[in-house]
């Protein structure tokens, strides 16, 4: 039943993706509207899935790679729905929907939904560590999406090859402001997540500590460069894309390899 909810959710994201592509092709893309509603409905189904799975497991549903990916997709949708309209980033939905769709399709098709041996009563700190860290990843994912949009918009402006999508993009300075806020949001959440990890009272695997600090340092360096004003916005945007791509790959690798530190 829970996978059924996830399939419906994936269909909503697919619908948002197809509709946006068609609207852009027909040169009649309108901000918000259908795209936003489809993502919101997809989010409702994701939430229902996580809730059903959580009740079945009697804990936060983060016991295997499949659930980690779905939780990450849920975090991305949540942060998009919270910040997208506020920062005039409606077109971000056009980029967010394919990303979430891809994550969910991969999670559904790959043989990664393997039941993990039950841990009697996981520490609440451990649950907080995992969930807050993944929400931080959601913020970083959207910073990456905003970074991609920045790079596309900047390239059009530099090359003077303006296509019909150009005027639907948010202004460069708004995108840069959104990148900064998303980076801060993700960074603060990641810091909280890491701190919660140290309060679990359980020994932490060295590889996870190293990976967490590596990601934390990378984002700290980007924020430092951003606020010192020594790095051009285009480079900050590029770093956001690189940092998230690296972090996602590592997240997959670490979660896959780690057998001892799952919830």
């Amino acid at each position: 039943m829970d996978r059924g909810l996830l399939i419906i959710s994936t269909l909503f994201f697919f619908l948002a993706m197809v509709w946006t592509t068609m609207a852009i092709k027909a040169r009649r893309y309108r901000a918000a509207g259908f795209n936003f509603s489809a993502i919101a409905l997809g989010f409702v189904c994701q939430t229902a899935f996580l809730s059903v799975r959580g009740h079945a497991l009697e804990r936060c549903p983060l016991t295997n790679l499949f659930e980690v990916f779905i939780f990450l997709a849920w975090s991305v949708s949540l942060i998009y729905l919270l910040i997208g309209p506020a920062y005039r980033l409606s077109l971000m939905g056009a980029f967010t929907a394919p990303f979430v769709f891809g994550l969910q399709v991969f999670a559904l098709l790959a043989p990664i939904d393997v039941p993990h041996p039950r841990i009697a009563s996981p520490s609440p700190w451990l649950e907080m560590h995992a969930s807050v860290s993944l929400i931080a990843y959601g913020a970083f994912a959207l910073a990456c999406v905003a970074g991609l949009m920045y790079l596309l918009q900047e390239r059009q402006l530099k090359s003077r090859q303006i296509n019909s999508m150009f005027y639907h993009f948010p202004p460069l300075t708004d995108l840069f402001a959104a990148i900064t806020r998303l980076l801060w949001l993700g960074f603060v959440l990641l810091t909280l997540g890491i701190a919660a990890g140290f309060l679990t009272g359980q020994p932490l695997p060295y590889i996870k500590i190293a990976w967490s600090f590596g990601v934390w340092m990378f984002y700290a360096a980007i924020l430092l460069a951003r606020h010192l004003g020594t790095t051009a916005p285009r480079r900050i945007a590029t770093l956001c894309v690189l940092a998230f791509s690296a972090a996602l790959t590592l997240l997959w690798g670490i979660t896959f390899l780690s057998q001892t530190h799952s919830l």
Partner: protein
Amino acid sequence: MNLFCVGLSHHTANVETRERFVGHAAIDRVLRAEAGCTEAIFLTTCNRVEVYAASEQPIPTQRIAQCLLAEGMMAEDDEMGAFYRHEAQQCVQHLFRVASGLDSMVIGETEILGQAKKAYAAARESGAAGPFLHRLFQRAFRVAKQVRTRTGITRGAVSVGSVAVDLAEQIFGHFETRKVLLLGAGEASERTARALVKRGVRDIRVANRSPERAEALAALVGGRAVAIGQWESHCREVDILISSTASATPLVMRENLGPLMHDRLDRPLFIIDIAVPRDVAPDVNEMEGVFLYDIDSLQSIAQQSLALRRQQIAAGEEIIARHVDDLSGWIVSARERRLNSPGLSDPALRTSES
């Protein structure tokens, strides 16, 4: 009831001819009392002069044309060739095309809708517009709105000034806190500066070789004149640089802009170079955070937008055709009812569109 439109526009007449038939204060009264129109709306813009009218008896084009001339003037034969006339459904179609901007010189421009609304309001006030034209114009406004929202006919800027302002908006979003430096006080930079002021720019600085001209332009756009020799230091602060000097060699080059940009790496600089020969070296565009547009690149974007708008004409015509079909039954029935009972006012004509 005869419904017709008589007029001339940029398609058929040059500006000298259009100027002669520009109408006068008493046009509404003349069209009804002298020409015999039952209802009339006079629409005049810089590109067209048109009369939309309803009458019991057919009225010759010459008679309407004569009403458009000032007292004592006579329409000449060669000028009459510039007039077009549309009857019944063709008149409806023409009005819908005009209101939607499909017949405009700049396709998709929206100013015409405001002008049509103004003409209609004036005719309503003077009593020249009755139920027949009321219904027709209300429908025209609805059609224009549909064409505008359902097609891309109004999308993209089509003049150099508006392209520059749109690009600036895509970089900066809002203009309230943005600073602009005009290097040179030419007419083109004045137009662009005015457009930026309209969108909310409050800080405009004008640097020109002639301080008097700088002062005059600064006063016009609500800015302040600065010494031409200090333009480089102002570049540290401004977000938009509009250059239009008469210099024979480039003023803005990588060498002098490089150190300035280093201090403001996180703030983009949008340079609009509308001077010929160019004031800004082309390789400045390769610098981090600088977006340089010269007159050719601005014109090229305007042309692209215009081409995109042209592609949308067919979609607009489809919407118009549907509305014309919808109204044609009404026009025919109104005409027949009038013919059968000329003394009675037609209830169908009183039906409101809105």
